[in-house]
């Protein structure tokens, strides 16, 4: 059971990607419901064929003038419809499928398999795993992530539910609050994420035993035995590197959207928006798994991030290599109060 969780944890993202790709293939034929060309034809009928081609392409050549003084928009926003289709037909529905699917799988997993308890009884001796700084960083980032995820989801899906549910007046406040929280907290999240990524970089550098960890599906394959893991196991490293890649991309694209004052083009913002949405929806789905494993899913994990200390048994079972390095530092529970020494790192 534990192994299944770990396996899913690891392969969730590629699976999702595959699912999305398959769905896109199926969605293709039903695209193009809008007809901007028709609207253009209605709007400017008296043009000859050459002009018509020019207009339609959105490319307007060197001697193009606009009565708007500082406009850099072409006559026709040729990519607008593409953006709309990608967003509304692909990203929006499949983002929902990804997130709901993930939630459903977690619920299912929990109902069938239940919580992963420690195999051995607790020794009562504690190991310092997270310092106060690390914990506050983690919880700040986590809180911001959740706020951004919720407000982001509201921006994408809220109108289908809350507008009719609560009425325009409440919805107006809700959605404008969402946008403001999202726009003002987003950059803060970005800064903190970069700090936390830097802080945890060394622990998350890949090593040989990670490969074994993956081959054994995090313990799912080859029953009864945990694969080797240092301070961070293979699954955690994947989460780290997801944040370090997709996370940073989401942040960068978010900044493109959040600061129109730099005059980036409409096209740039369209692409940024798609990248942002895909990345953020994916991360949100993965984050659900992270949250599950870190709280309900695994006994002893949450207390580590809550208090900073983990039980010797937990360490031995989940992070045996790390445990080997630090076991001499294990202390009785009452001794750990107020302890703030840095946990030893893997030296090699």
């Amino acid at each position, binding site marked *: 059971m534990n192994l299944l969780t770990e396996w899913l944890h690891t392969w969730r993202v590629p699976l999702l990607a595959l699912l999305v790709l398959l769905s896109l293939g199926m969605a293709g034929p039903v695209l193009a419901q809008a007809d901007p060309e028709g609207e253009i034809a209605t709007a400017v009928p008296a043009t000859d064929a050459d002009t018509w081609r020019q*207009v339609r392409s959105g490319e307007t050549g060197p001697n193009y003038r606009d009565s708007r003084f500082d406009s850099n928009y072409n*006559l026709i926003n040729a990519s607008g419809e593409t953006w709309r289709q990608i967003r509304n037909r692909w990203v929006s529905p499949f983002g929902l499928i990804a997130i709901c699917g993930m939630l459903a799988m977690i619920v299912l997993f929990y109902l069938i398999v239940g919580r992963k308890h420690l195999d051995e009884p607790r020794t009562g001796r504690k190991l310092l795993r997270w310092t106060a700084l690390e914990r506050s960083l983690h919880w700040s980032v986590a809180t911001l992530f959740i706020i951004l995820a919720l407000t982001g989801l509201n921006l994408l899906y809220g109108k289908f539910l809350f507008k009719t549910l609560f009425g325009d007046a409440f919805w107006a406040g809700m959605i404008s609050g969402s946008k403001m929280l999202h726009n003002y907290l987003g950059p803060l999240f970005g800064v903190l994420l970069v700090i936390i990524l830097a802080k945890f970089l060394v622990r998350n550098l890949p090593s040989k035993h990670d490969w074994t960890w993956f081959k054994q599906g995090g313990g799912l394959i080859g029953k009864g035995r945990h694969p080797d893991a240092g301070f961070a196991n293979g699954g955690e490293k994947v989460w780290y590197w997801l944040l370090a890649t997709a996370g940073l991309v989401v942040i960068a694209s978010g900044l493109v959207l959040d600061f129109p004052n730099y005059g980036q083009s409409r096209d740039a913002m369209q692409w940024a928006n798609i990248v942002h949405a895909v990345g953020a929806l994916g991360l949100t789905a993965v984050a659900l798994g992270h949250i599950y494993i870190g709280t309900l899913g695994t006994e002893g994990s949450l207390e580590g991030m809550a208090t900073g200390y983990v039980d010797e048994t937990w360490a031995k079972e989940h992070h045996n290599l790390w445990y080997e390095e630090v076991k001499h530092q294990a202390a009785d529970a009452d001794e750990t109060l107020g302890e703030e020494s840095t946990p030893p790192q893997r030296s090699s």
Partner: protein
Amino acid sequence: MAQMKFMCDAERCIECNGCVTACKNANDVEWGIQRRRVVTLNDGEPGEVSISVACMHCDDAPCMAVCPTDCFYKTDDGIVLHDKDLCIGCGYCLYACPFGAPQFPKQNAFGERGKMDKCTFCAGGPANSKEEEYQKYGANRIAEGKLPLCAEMCSTKALLAGDAQTVADIFRQRVVQRGHEDGAWSSLEGRPATADELAYDATRQQ
């Protein structure tokens, strides 16, 4: 039910920008926002052509489809309006609009754009009083049985506004008078349209 449309007869448009200022006149639009704009292709060369564009009140409006707050709605006349109290200035309508119609009074950090503004076909917008409606959206000429001021004041009658069928009829008549190929919709295939095809797009209703 009428289906309101704009149509710009590019053979007549002389880029005088009368429509742009007529709009300002009717709606008191602030500096920096032109609900209607005039663009010119091949400026200064043979083949120079000018076109006046604003919100085209699309049948299947992309702005409506992508708005996160669902602030757009369509009137019985097919006019696409929006509720400025709901607008959050996210800019999505601008990303989606084929015509660059939505505009924002600002373009500040943290996506502070202010409330989106666009052509209302001189049909105002949702408000509790006439004053509020004018302050937020400008004139409601449609309610008085008048058409948008930009088209009414067009210097050469290039810009037409009104029921799609009527507008198409006027245009078709002009094409017949002009009696040459380029006076018509040149159609998607790049060939001149036949008389039957002329009204196709404008009369199409959903």
